[in-house]
Every structure is written in structure tokens, then in C-alpha cells.
């Protein structure tokens, strides 16, 4: 899990590479490096964040072509030697992905006399390139172009990669290639960018080309790019205009991206349903679904595949599909599904949920499901991401770029998409009346304003976070739709504040976890009104009897609950099925302010990366 960048143009490459790497820091940040070509290769690398790298760079590095890398260690510790770019003679390479057969390749290269400096899998690529270019460790004459050397090298690699390579004997050329790791090319005015993610160069250009698996591209000064497929045949690629604007990736006055993104939910939620619902007709219009009414009626089961926060959203989806549309639904994590023995067939609909569209486990699991002949749809946030090119239909969340590692607006927009999908299925399968559907849509339209209301009153949540920020453990409990929200609340808290937190179905407390409760353990009880409200009250009493502190998330007009709990965090009164969206915003703010109080690195929590493109 790493990020790579490359630049070929007329401006000094070093500062552009650093700038781009900063935008990719969410992909990993335990070490970083750049290599700039100007007659010879100049390489700078160090451990830590990009700012560390920036501080060791000398003034005025010349050269208008270069590559860079920010690393999140998989093979070998995060230290300077293991950080990229990796060199072999006059060849430099950066790589994101995992070379599965690297031990075998390494042995052979060592046999050929190559000396390995690092513990990484990537170094084999550098030496392989060198051996193809010069015929061996002692070779002095260049036998082929860098392009050809890359193509030859790729033949022996197994695993996943996005690479960018330079060679000082082939000046003015950068070669990039990809397989199963993201890579995108930006076409500027007389300059070309390459990166793992468009956000790296959006400031410079919005015209991009997505590199597909097994493709290689040769990028030359003056703005020329040529693409070739696995067999070396030239490929014509389509240039796509990216709609995101660069300010979306800036903090715009906020201290942290996470707080900015929490605030953006009022508008991103609205963008996600805009134009897709008709209140008067009680209808949801999802043309991009590409499914006939017949297909929707004959579906026997839904299999949701996701990881992390998206998995929590998927669990909400399960309750919705079952309750609204009467379709049996299972939710699996990508990493479990792909190695399991799934019992699925053609009438099962697979729904993959991934913010980035690049989550390796989810991608592999969906490929697996499709191999059984399942129809698969994706809910994702990134236009043109890998999953969108491998699937039957795509439902986009309109969250805009999410930079904070802790998912916020991507979660709530995923929920909105799931509500719309469930409602659409329910209507077509005749499981919900037009009137009930209309009422749900009326409440859905109110969600943006309801979120704004929570934001207006966030000081109460901040006070609460402060009060309990010293706790070592936190529990989150909820029932029915609020159970996934409890899981998500716990996940947010542990991700960014490093407090041990667990989410439980409230009815499960007595089967074990109750033993852990003391007067030092805050328990967050999500107790908005609904058919399980009374049950929640008895669970709260159960917890109070063990002297634990209870923080309730409750409706603004609930006057009963304050009798039983220590703190009440209010959410606007909404439809029972929709209130989980509002509760999750409250829990995001609770996690944010707790982390703030504890002085944690909120946007870049330790050991975590934004989109996990490794297994």
C-alpha cells in the first residue's frame, strides 16, 4: 500500500513531485523518496512523512523529469534503505503493489551477481530492468530502450504493481506500467503526470487517462504518451475530464480534513440523491442500475461485499433490503469472502461497496463472485476506479474526494445510495406502498437539513468528548439498524483517538462484554425512537446497574431517556429507518473531538492508510 508519482515536463520536477506526494500521503506515510533525472539520477529518501523528505532536499535540484513514492510498509521495515525509489546502476524505479514471486527472482539475481540493499520486493524490479538493459551486472553497453526493458521485466513478475521507471542512459523518458494497482496519467500543457490517484496532480490538469491492467506507457518530454498492451501493440486511450476541483482537496480554513468532511455531509448527501428521487410519485430513479424489473423480481439473495467502514454500511444495507424489499441479504468482508467457499448462483446479486474502488480484497472477492455468473454492482465514490471497469453497473456516491483516513462522508453517502436501492427494489417487488415510499423519501429529503442541525449544535458533542477523553475503553451499543452504527461509532473512535472501542448489538452485552464494564467505561447507547426503543431502555438500565457511564444518542423530543443516562446527545427527529444516518454524524463528531482532545494525528492515524490496495 503506497503511492507513486511521476513527472515529465519543463518545470523543476522536485517541487512538483513533493507537492503531488503530499496529496497521496493518505495512501501511506512511513517513508518517502524522490529521484530526479538531470544527466545523472539524484535520489533523496527518508523515513516519516513527506514533510521530512522536503526538509532534507537541497535548494534548486535541477531536472525536469522525476519519480516519487510514499510508502506504507508491507515487505521490510519502514526505514530509509527500504524506501523507494530503488536503484540498480543508472536505473530507478518506484512501485506500489506486491511482487509475489520476488524471493525466487531475488535468488536468481543474486546468483547473477546483483547485490540487494533493501528487504523490499521492489528492488528485484530495479535489478531486472538493469539486467535487461545491460545484459547483466557488468554490462556497459545499452542493449535496448528502457521501454523494452520494462516490457521484458513485466513478463517475469507475478503479483500486483503500478510502477514508474527512469534510466539516465535513456534521458527524457519515463516508463509506467500497471497490473492490479491503480495508475493514472494526467495530460497537462507540455507536461505529463503519473500517479496512483488523480488527486496528486488535479492542481495541474483535469485531463486524465486511466491506465488499464497489463498496459505500459512511455512518456516523453514535450507531452507525448504512447500506450501499449501486454503484447506490445499500440493502444489508443480515451482522455477523461475529471469533474473534481482542486479546492475539494484543500482544507479550506478547517484544522483537519476530517472535520471539513464531516461538515460537507450536508451537501454531499444531497448531491447523492439529487435528481434520483421523486417525492410526489414516491419513486426512485436509478437508470445506471441497468437491471430490468424482471431481474429485480427474480433475485433470490443479495451478497454484499465490503471492508471496514463500507462493511458497516453494508450491514445497514442488509437490514434495509430485508425489511423493505424482503430479500435475504448476507454481508461479507472482502478478505473472508475471497477465501471462503461461497454458495452462490446466477440469481444472487452481488453488491460491492468501496469508497476508492480500489480496495484489493473487495475487488478480488467480486471477481470471484462474478466467476459464478452473479450479476455484480458497485457502490463507489471514485469515477474511473478499477472496480468501475470490471462490473455490470456502478452507483456513484457523490461525496467528492475524501482525504481524511477516517471515512465520514463516504459512509453517509453510501447509506443514502443503499436506501435508494432498497426502496427501488421494494417498489418493484411490491413490498412497499407508494405512500410509505413517499413518506420515506420526504424524510430523506430532510436529511441534509437535519445534518446541518447537528453541526449547528456540535459544541454539546465536543463537551461530552472532553469529559470522557481519558477513558481507556469505550463501548457502543445499538439494536437493529443502530447496531451497524454502533460498530461504525466504535471504529471511528479507535481509528483516530486510539481508544479501545467495541460495538455490540445491545442484546449481546449480557453474553459476555458486561463483565468488562466499570464506572470508568463510557457506553454509548444509540437509542433513537423505533420498534426496539423499549428494549434499548432496558439494556441501558442493565449497563447503569454496573455503574458504567451512559452516553445516549436520542431524538431531540425524547424526554424519557434523560432519566436513565448521564449525557444525552440529540439528533433531529427523523424516520426510524433514516435516523441511523444522523446518529452516525453525531458519533463522527464524538470521535473527532475525542481525538482532538487527546492530541492525535487525526487525518493520518498511525498504521492506517486510506485506500488499502494490498491484500
Amino acid at each position, binding site marked *: 500500500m503506497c503511492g507513486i508519482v511521476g513527472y515529465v515536463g519543463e518545470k523543476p520536477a522536485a517541487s512538483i513531485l513533493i507537492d503531488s506526494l503530499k496529496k497521496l500521503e493518505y495512501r501511506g506515510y512511513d517513508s518517502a523518496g524522490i529521484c530526479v533525472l538531470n544527466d545523472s539520477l539524484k535520489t533523496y529518501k527518508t523515513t516519516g512523512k513527506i514533510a521530512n523528505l522536503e526538509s532534507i532536499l537541497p535548494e534548486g535540484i535541477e531536472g525536469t523529469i522525476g519519480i516519487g513514492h510514499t510508502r506504507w510498509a508491507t515487505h521490510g521495515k519502514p526505514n530509509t534503505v527500504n524506501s523507494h525509489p530503488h536503484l540498480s546502476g543508472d536505473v530507478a524505479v518506484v512501485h506500489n503493489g506486491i511482487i509475489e514471486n520476488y524471493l525466487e527472482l531475488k535468488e536468481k539475481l543474486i546468483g547473477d551477481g546483483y547485490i540487494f540493499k533493501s528487504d523490499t520486493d521492489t528492488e528485484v524490479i530495479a535489478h531486472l530492468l538493469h539486467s535487461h538493459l545491460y545484459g547483466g551486472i557488468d554490462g556497459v553497453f545499452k542493449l535496448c530502450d528502457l521501454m523494452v526493458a520494462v516490457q521484458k521485466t513485466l513478463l517475469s513478475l507475478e503479483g500486483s504493481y503500478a510502477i514508474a521507471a527512469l534510466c539516465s542512459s535513456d534521458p527524457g523518458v519515463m516508463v509506467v506500467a500497471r497490473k492490479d494497482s491503480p495508475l493514472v496519467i494526467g495530460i497537462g500543457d507540455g507536461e505529463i503526470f503519473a500517479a496512483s490517484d488523480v488527486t496528486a496532480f488535479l492542481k495541474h490538469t483535469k485531463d486524465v487517462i486511466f491506465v488499464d491492467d497489463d498496459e505500459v506507457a512511455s512518456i516523453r518530454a514535450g507531452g507525448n504518451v504512447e500506450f501499449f498492451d501486454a503484447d506490445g501493440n499500440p493502444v489508443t486511450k480515451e482522455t477523461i475530464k475529471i469533474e473534481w*476541483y*482542486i*479546492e*475539494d482537496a*484543500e482544507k*479550506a*480554513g*478547517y484544522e483537519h480534513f476530517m472535520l*471539513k468532511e464531516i*461538515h*460537507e455531509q*450536508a*451537501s454531499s448527501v*444531497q448531491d447523492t440523491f*439529487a*435528481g434520483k428521487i*421523486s*417525492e*410526489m410519485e414516491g419513486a426512485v430513479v436509478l437508470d445506471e442500475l441497468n437491471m430490468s424489473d424482471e431481474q429485480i423480481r427474480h433475485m433470490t439473495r443479495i451478497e454484499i461485499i465490503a471492508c471496514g467502514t463500507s462493511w458497516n454500511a453494508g450491514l445497514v444495507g442488509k437490514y434495509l433490503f430485508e425489511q423493505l424489499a424482503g430479500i435475504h441479504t448476507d454481508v461479507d468482508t472482502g478478505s473472508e469472502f475471497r477465501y471462503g467457499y461461497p454458495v452462490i448462483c446466477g440469481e444472487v446479486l452481488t453488491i460491492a461497496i468501496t469508497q476508492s474502488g480500489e480496495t484489493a480484497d473487495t475487488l478480488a472477492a467480486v471477481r470471484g463472485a462474478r466467476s459464478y455468473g452473479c450479476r455484480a454492482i458497485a457502490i463507489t465514490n471514485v469515477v474511473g476506479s478499477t472496480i468501475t471497469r470490471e462490473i455490470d453497473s456502478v452507483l456513484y456516491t457523490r461525496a467528492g474526494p475524501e482525504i481524511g483516513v477516517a471515512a465520514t462522508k463516504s459512509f453517509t453517502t453510501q447509506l443514502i445510495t443503499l436506501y435508494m436501492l432498497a426502496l427501488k427494489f421494494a417498489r418493484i417487488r411490491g413490498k412497499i406502498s407508494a405512500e410509505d415510499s413517499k413518506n420515506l423519501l*420526504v424524510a430523506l*429529503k*430532510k436529511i*441534509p*437539513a*437535519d445534518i*446541518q*442541525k447537528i*453541526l*449547528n449544535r456540535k459544541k454539546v458533542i465536543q463537551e461530552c468528548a472532553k469529559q470522557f477523553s481519558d477513558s481507556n475503553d469505550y463501548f457502543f451499543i445499538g439494536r437493529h439498524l443502530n447496531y451497524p452504527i454502533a460498530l461504525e461509532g466504535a471504529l471511528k473512535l479507535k481509528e483516530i483517538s486510539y481508544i479501545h472501542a467495541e460495538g455490540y448489538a445491545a442484546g449481546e452485552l449480557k453474553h459476555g462484554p458486561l463483565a468488562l464494564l466499570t464506572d470508568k467505561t463510557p457506553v454509548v447507547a444509540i437509542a433513537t425512537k423505533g420498534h426496539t426503543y423499549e428494549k434499548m431502555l432496558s439494556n441501558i438500565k442493565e449497563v447503569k446497574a454496573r455503574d458504567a457511564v451512559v452516553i445516549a444518542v436520542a431524538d431531540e423530543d425524547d424526554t424519557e431517556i434523560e432519566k436513565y443516562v448521564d449525557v444525552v446527545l440529540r439528533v*433531529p427527529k427523523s424516520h426510524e429507518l433514516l435516523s441511523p444516518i444522523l446518529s452516525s454524524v453525531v458519533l463522527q463528531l464524538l470521535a473527532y473531538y475525542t481525538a482532538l482532545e487527546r492530541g492525535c494525528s487525526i487525518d493520518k492515524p498511525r498504521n492506517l492508510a486510506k485506500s488499502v490496495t494490498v491484500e
Partner: protein
Amino acid sequence: MKAIILAAGEGLRCRPLTLTRSKVMLPVANKPILEHAIYSLVENDIKDIILIVGYEKERIMDYFEDGVNFGVNITYIEQKAQLGTAHAVKQTRDFIEPDGKEFIVVNGDNIIEPKTVSDLLDGRGGDATILTFKMEHTIGYGVVIAEGRQVKQIVEKPKADISHLVNTGIYLFNPKIFEYIESTPLSDSGEYAITDALQQMIDAGLEVTMVPTQSRWLDAVYSWDLLKANSTVLDQDHTSNVIGTIEEGAVIKGNVSVGNNTTIRSGCYIVGPVLIGDNCEIGPDVVILPSTTIGNNASIGPFSQIKNSIIMNDARIEAHTFISNSVIGSNNTIGSHFITDEKDNLKIEMIGMLHHADRLGVITGDDIVIGHRVLVKPGVLIGAGCNVESGNIINRELPPNSTVV
């Protein structure tokens, strides 16, 4: 050239609308007042903007972000304690002074047009230039006493009409102003005023000039002044741009704009100037009469009539309502048969004083829920978060979060 926009204050006199956002974010012609200022600067090729924010700053930051969608580059500076205009400008010293260039200062809460800014730029002179607006009665405003273009004295809120040149609060400065800001004393009202810094410049013999303008410069002092500002801008700008869907049988006359994903259902009768935002559902059979703006994500039920009013985002208005000369805050849910009564020459109590309003229905804050068949008497202000149950007649101001059973 860089511009500083002062947008830190609440706008106390615009309550209840400013309980949840500052005055600069109140909509005029479906755009926050501040956006009018930013647009006016962009049109004069001033794109480097420093926004001084404070009260409810998140609402401003969420809307404008880094400014790229508005063609500008915005830097936010938070003024933590609101100690006056000189104090606000002082915060920007590190951003402005190193350039050694002239810069412009604009009040974010006045409604201006591009010409207003170009009048100042074209007429500038001396070390500081004040843009003034000619007015018949200037009591209550800061005025400028000048000989020709030379400013002799700046008088804050005089008791008599001693000058007809109102200080618009729009200035062109060179960095010398910072020296005088440093030595500005705290005024009697407990603030550091930029006008005191200017007076010191004059007293020290520097050249301070003024440019009179008759271009747009509107000030919504009280919440009900928004209606006048709204109708003035609608009348002058002639915007007409229909993107949404107009069903067969709906009639549109005059300058009407309808936003993306909005549906105007059959039988509606809309007479411009009217602006309707994105994602709205209007009708069937709704009458919308001139000088009305409706924000985003609103729905208006059948057989309702709305005229000369501002309806903000996320409003949900049921059937058979009558709304006239009123401002409806965002996220209001209003039941059927809601009626706003209206009257001329009202006296409205606010902050312990009576104030005059020309013609007014009602003003409602954000997040209000009103049941069916509710009548509101003229000039009533309803605070944010109130809940009025069905069948009530509201004849006096409601404090925020009150419930009327």
C-alpha cells in the same frame, strides 16, 4: 491586487435569521450576501481574497471552500475576538504588507455589484480612498465630510444630516494604513475602528480621498430589509435561466430561473422576477408572484400562493398556504393552510427598541416546524427551532426553541 472581506460579525439586528449563520450568509437573489461581494471583486480581476471570519465561520467555509468554484483563491483568517474593523484588518498585516501594494477592504455584509468596486478603483487617489454613497437622510450611518475629493473628517453616526456622503465601508489602502492601525486607540464603544485609523491619517497630514458612487450598495440592517434588497437585485439583474423541468400546463412569465433537478408541476403560474433553486418540487397549481426567491431542496404543495418573499433551502410547505412579504428560514416544515398576515408601517421590537418596517408579513428562523392551519400576525419574528402546533394564531415574537401547544 488583494482584497480583504470582513465577515466575522453576527449581524445581531438580523436575528432570528442570524442565530444559525452570520449575516453575510443570508441569501439575496438566492446567493449569500458575501457571494455578491466576491463576484464583484472577481469581475474586477481581484482574485486573491482574505476572508476574515468569526461567528459561525463553518457555514462560510463549507460554502466557499477555497474559492475555486467562485473563481478566487480564498485565505481564511479567524478573528477570535470581535474588536472592530481596525482589529480585523490588522490580522491580515503579514499577508498584505510584504507585497507593498495597494489593497481593497470590503464589508461582507453589504450587497454590491461589480460597478461598485470599479467606481472605487477608477477614482482612487492619495494614501487611502473611501467609497461613499449619496443619501438624503444619513442619520444612523457613518458619514464623510469632504472638500471636493479630499476627506476632512469621518463622523460615526451623527445626530443630524451633516453630510449626504455615507461611508460604505469599502476602502482602498496602501500598506501605510497598518502603522496607523497600530496606534488606533480603543473607541468609546470598545472597538478598534478603521475610521479612527483613517482619521489619524488625515490628522497626520496624509492624503485621504473619497469617491462617490451611485452603483449598487444595499445594506440590510434588519432581517426585513432583506426583502427590499432581494427585490431590488431581482429587478436589476434580469436573470432568467430554466434548467429544471416545467410540466405541460405550467405558465412562466417574465424573468424566471429554475434550477437543476427542479420540477414545476402542471397548473403552476409563476410571474417573474422569480428565482427557484435546485432539487425543488413545486406544485401542482402553485402561484408564485414577483420578487420571490426559493432556495434549494424545497417543496411547495398545491394551491399555495407566495409573493415578495424569500424561502430558504430545505423548506417544506404544504398545500393551501399563503406567504407574502415574508422571510422563511431554512429547513422549515410548514403545514397546510398556513397564512402570513401583512401590514404597512409596523413597529417591531428588537434588542429592547422599536424599529420601523415598511410592509411585512413574518420572519422565521431555521429549523421550524409549524402544524396545519396556523395564522401568523404581521411583523412577528419566530426564533430558530420553534414548534407551533396546528390551529394556533401567533401574534407575538417567539424566542428560539419555543413550543406553542
